[in-house]
């Protein structure tokens, strides 16, 4: 391989940029089929109720309506909407339609009609009688003796303890935390509370389902997981996998919300029932009420340390609200502990969690996947510990963070007795991140120190805060990706990928890898991805896996194709294939003989010895190297109004290798924007009955451009030996940061600790004793 890179590492333009900026229809909804029907869902007004009677006949008779169905019309097959590898570690506690509703917004019935208006009107003609049940509207009540049981049906399975509303339970210990606490000179132990957050994808969930000319079910759908979706829909409908064809067009944002099969099963049932194409699209209100959210948690974080600054105990205890269904229940909260806890060397680490059902909105996968919650607690507590020991939070972190060569002890404990393997840190650019990030923010010059305000200070006070972060690159031991490449008649290549570009730019990054290996410019790579009939298997876009896992499969496929090209070239040039070099769209020998790829492909297709150039690569690994971040933020607190204004946010991120630096920066900026909202403004407000009160962009506050601080992104490259061109992941890790960094900065500015997200002005004034 040529050592000097030509395509990889450049900020190449996205392969799908032109069609996006010209508005060419590429999304699920930019598609119309003759005779297409529109589906609308009737949802539950009650947080917890049994449907004692439901009659859809009046709705079915409404003009334009082709189907109106309730739980009477679908088979009772428990499944999970969590798009994960089989067998999904999430409980099978959902039904396409059920006789019980478990939150305000739960599916009751669905109508397909010739117009959306007719479908909407028909919903009003469905007669439903409910037996209203007492609900669980606070996760702290879920496990109380006598609490209503949310999953009392016998068919559901996979819950840890359904009787006590516990969807999943985790306990893992390294060493003995109790001893570690005893050995400590200083112990910090605090409670942290984090809220529901919505993904707010620009494109809501949408599926168009129809039966093709062979009677197979086609799902054109906005998904992160085409292959899991195919398997799961087949399962939920009890039809063969081969009869389902999933097409993922361009997706307008996923962030985990589309790592769920949410609209597909209903749309499929309606298409099969009506024999017509059916479109089911969530409204924005639906996204805010019945889609998925980040899991709310109550975390108790305890850190013990000796006077010399060494950590003796790290203990995280979590109570998670999964809502009425346990989708991603175990794994998201698993990450809450397993991603943050290895960050600082500690001989005694304990992580325990209960993930409980409530009759509140459904929690699910969300970029960061449990880690933002955990890092908020850990990085707040580490900051407190540093100050309690009288040391600088930057120096304390420098002294204690995990080193290159270390084994992640939490993964080692979790791996015991399973086929998994502990993670070893083969790359770790955190020291460089700390160095460059602290310099960019002006750490030593600008720290205020959390001292009491002097009389002449205020009302605007500035402070600096920081945190460190890590994540993974794919799910260790639970990833598989494949790519194939064929050479076309004009010496271009078609790269076929099972992976799902959901706006992340992965189609571009992966094409860059292929172009690099094949010695062609990026335009010569045509990407075809996300169609289960035409491309190879892939687990999908989640867990920051695509560049690292699918990237390796592309690398292998491209190398496979290159070997074949070189072998043909060797015959054409009468040279030893081993010694040939591929670059600039030609194959050359050291002696100066050369043949173009165009000549080679013509020779292959039409010459004497006919052959097809077609490369194949499969990749699976037990590795999941963490990207690292050192994040720094400067904030300004108005001590009279309680407002927190982030001024400058620096993300120094070690991603091994920036395959496309522009895309990497985009991922970081997107992640911090989303989590600045999590830190400061975003929350789902619920009525006492469990109804969402702010299901609009007017009332659910994501930050807009004018609210943003200055962002500085520093890409650090400590090459990861197991990654393609040294790369590891970039997509998620930064989302874990802003909340703890801001909380620490607020402390630096005005000496208060905010442990309850979002950090709204009234909480600031309360903590300052002014309210």
């Amino acid at each position, binding site marked *: 391989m040529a050592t000097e890179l030509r395509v990889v590492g450049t900020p190449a333009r996205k392969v799908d940029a032109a069609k996006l900026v010209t508005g060419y229809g590429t999304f699920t909804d930019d598609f119309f089929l003759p005779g297409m029907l529109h589906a609308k869902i009737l949802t539950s007004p009650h947080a917890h109720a049994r449907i004692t009677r439901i009659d859809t006949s009046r709705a079915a008779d409404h003009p334009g309506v082709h189907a109106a169905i309730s739980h009477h019309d679908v088979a009772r097959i428990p499944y999970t909407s969590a798009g994960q590898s089989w067998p999904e570690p999430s409980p099978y506690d959902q039904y396409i339609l059920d006789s019980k509703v478990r939150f305000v917004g739960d599916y009751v019935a669905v109508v397909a009609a010739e117009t959306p208006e007719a479908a909407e009107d028909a919903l009003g003609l469905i007669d439903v009688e409910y037996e209203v049940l007492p609900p669980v509207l606070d996760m702290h009540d879920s496990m109380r003796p006598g609490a209503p049981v949310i999953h009392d049906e016998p068919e559901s399975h996979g819950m840890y303890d359904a009787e006590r509303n516990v969807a999943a339970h985790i306990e893992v210990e390294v060493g003995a935390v109790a001893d570690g606490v005893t050995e400590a000179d200083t112990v910090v132990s605090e409670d942290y509370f984090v809220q529901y957050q919505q993904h707010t994808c620009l494109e809501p969930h949408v599926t168009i389902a129809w039966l093709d000319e062979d009677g197979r079910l086609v799902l054109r759908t906005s998904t992160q997981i085409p292959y899991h979706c195919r398997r799961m829909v087949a399962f939920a409908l009890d039809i063969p996998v081969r009869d389902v064809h999933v097409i993922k067009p361009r997706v307008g944002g996923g962030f985990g919300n589309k790592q769920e099969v949410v609209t597909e099963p209903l749309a499929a049932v309606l298409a099969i029932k009506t024999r017509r194409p059916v479109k089911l699209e969530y409204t924005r209100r639906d996204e805010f009420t019945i889609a998925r959210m980040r899991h709310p948690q109550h975390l108790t974080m305890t850190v013990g340390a000796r006077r010399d600054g060494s950590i003796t105990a790290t203990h995280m205890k979590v109570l998670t609200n999964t809502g009425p269904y346990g989708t991603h229940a175990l794994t998201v909260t698993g990450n809450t502990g397993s991603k943050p806890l290895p960050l600082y060397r500690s001989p005694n680490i304990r992580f325990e969690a209960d993930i409980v059902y409530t009759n509140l909105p459904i929690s699910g996968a969300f970029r960061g996947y449990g880690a933002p919650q955990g890092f908020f607690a850990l990085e707040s507590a580490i900051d407190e510990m540093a100050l309690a020991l009288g040391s600088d939070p930057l120096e304390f972190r420098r002294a204690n963070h995990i080193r290159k060569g270390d084994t992640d002890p939490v993964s080692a404990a979790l791996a015991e007795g399973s086929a998994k393997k502990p993670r070893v840190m083969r790359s770790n650019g955190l020291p460089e991140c700390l160095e460059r990030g602290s310099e960019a923010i002006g750490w030593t010059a600008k720290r205020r120190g959390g001292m009491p305000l002097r009389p002449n200070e205020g009302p605007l006070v500035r402070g600096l805060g920081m945190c460190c972060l890590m994540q993974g690159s794919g799910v260790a031991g639970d990833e598989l990706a494949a790519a194939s490449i064929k050479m076309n008649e004009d010496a271009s290549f078609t790269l076929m990928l099972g992976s799902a570009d959901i706006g992340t730019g992965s189609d571009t990054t992966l094409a860059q890898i292929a172009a690099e290996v094949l010695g062609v410019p990026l335009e010569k790579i045509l990407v075809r991805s996300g169609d289960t009939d035409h491309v190879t298997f892939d687990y999908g876009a989640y867990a920051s896996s695509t560049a690292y896992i699918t990237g390796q499969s592309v690398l292998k496929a491209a190398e496979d194709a290159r070997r074949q090209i070189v072998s043909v070239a060797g015959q054409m040039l009468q040279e030893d294939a081993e010694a040939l070099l591929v670059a600039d769209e030609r194959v050359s020998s050291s002696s100066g003989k050369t043949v173009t790829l165009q000549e080679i492909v013509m020779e292959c297709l039409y010459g004497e010895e006919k052959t097809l150039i077609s490369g194949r690569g499969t990749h699976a690994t037990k590795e999941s190297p963490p990207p690292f971040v050192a994040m720094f933020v400067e904030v300004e607190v108005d001590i009279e109004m309680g407002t927190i204004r982030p001024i400058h946010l620096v993300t120094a991120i070690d991603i091994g290798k920036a395959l496309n630096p522009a895309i990497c920066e985009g991922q970081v900026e997107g992640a911090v924007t989303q989590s600045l909202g999590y830190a400061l403004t975003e929350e789902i407000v619920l009525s006492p009955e469990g109804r969402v009160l702010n299901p609009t962009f007017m009332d659910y*506050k994501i930050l*807009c451009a004018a*609210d943003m601080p200055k962002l500085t992104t520093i890409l650090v490259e400590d090459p990861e030996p197991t990654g393609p061109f040294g790369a590891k992941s970039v997509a998620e890790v930064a989302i874990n940061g802003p909340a703890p960094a801001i909380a620490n900065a607020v402390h630096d500015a005005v000496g208060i600790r905010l442990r309850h997200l979002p950090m709204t002005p*009234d909480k600031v004034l309360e903590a300052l004793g002014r309210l």
Partner: protein
Amino acid sequence: MKPAPFTYYDPHTLDEALGLLAVHGDAAKILAGGQSLVPLLNMRLAAPDVIVDINRLPDLDFVTTDNGLRVGALARQAMVERDAAVRDVAPLVTEAIAWVGHRQIRNRGTLVGSLAHADPAAEMPLVFLALDGELHLRRTSGSRRVSAGDFFVHIMTTALDPEEIATEASLPPVPPGSGSAFLEVARRHGDFAVAAIAVVVTIEAGRIRRARVALGGVGPTPLRATRAEERLVDEEPTNELFVEAALAASHDCEPVTDIHGTAEYRRELVRTMVYRGLGRAVVRARTGAAG
């Protein structure tokens, strides 16, 4: 969602428009910039039978500044915002209007529409109350003027009758020696205010001769903090006075808790903002600086 069906008229003369309103009464809604009405229609929170689009009416897109400020019904908020003469005669308007939504909203939304819509947290109603503004209302049978104090009746409810059009809003000239200030806290840039305040003080011979303290987002309409105003009048502007007046203002309102802020927080904001606003307004009154 899309609006419920309605009949759409776009009259080309004021008489024609008033005639339509006389016929349809409260079945009709006037469409100006559409920045409040269209969202209400799309969310089906409003479902009028008739829409009377006034955008084709002639001669209503004026802003004049020769004797106070006059703003026609079709003058966009952006037009007012960019008008340098407005900054001279009514700097409070210029200061506050930048807080109305986002630039895109202000390019279409009208100032008069903001007053007619009467959102309790909106900026323009607050400012017109503080500056003793007036609304000029027309109907087929005549016209009348209503002071801002009488115009805002309740949440999104005004003194406008269904058959009336507000053709203009006006402000009297500000007396010499005046200074003003506008402050607001919103959760995000461009949001409606959690709370906002507008103050105007006129200083003569070292004493406050006239004071207006208006509060927004802390009641069903914008409010005058009369006890605060009384506390200020005839006093020398001192820091202690501002502290007391601000405290009084915070008790001149009955804020409620909603999803954007608690009642206690809003009251505290009023106190802080009135205090800061008075300081700024007095400096501006003394220096003759804009505002």
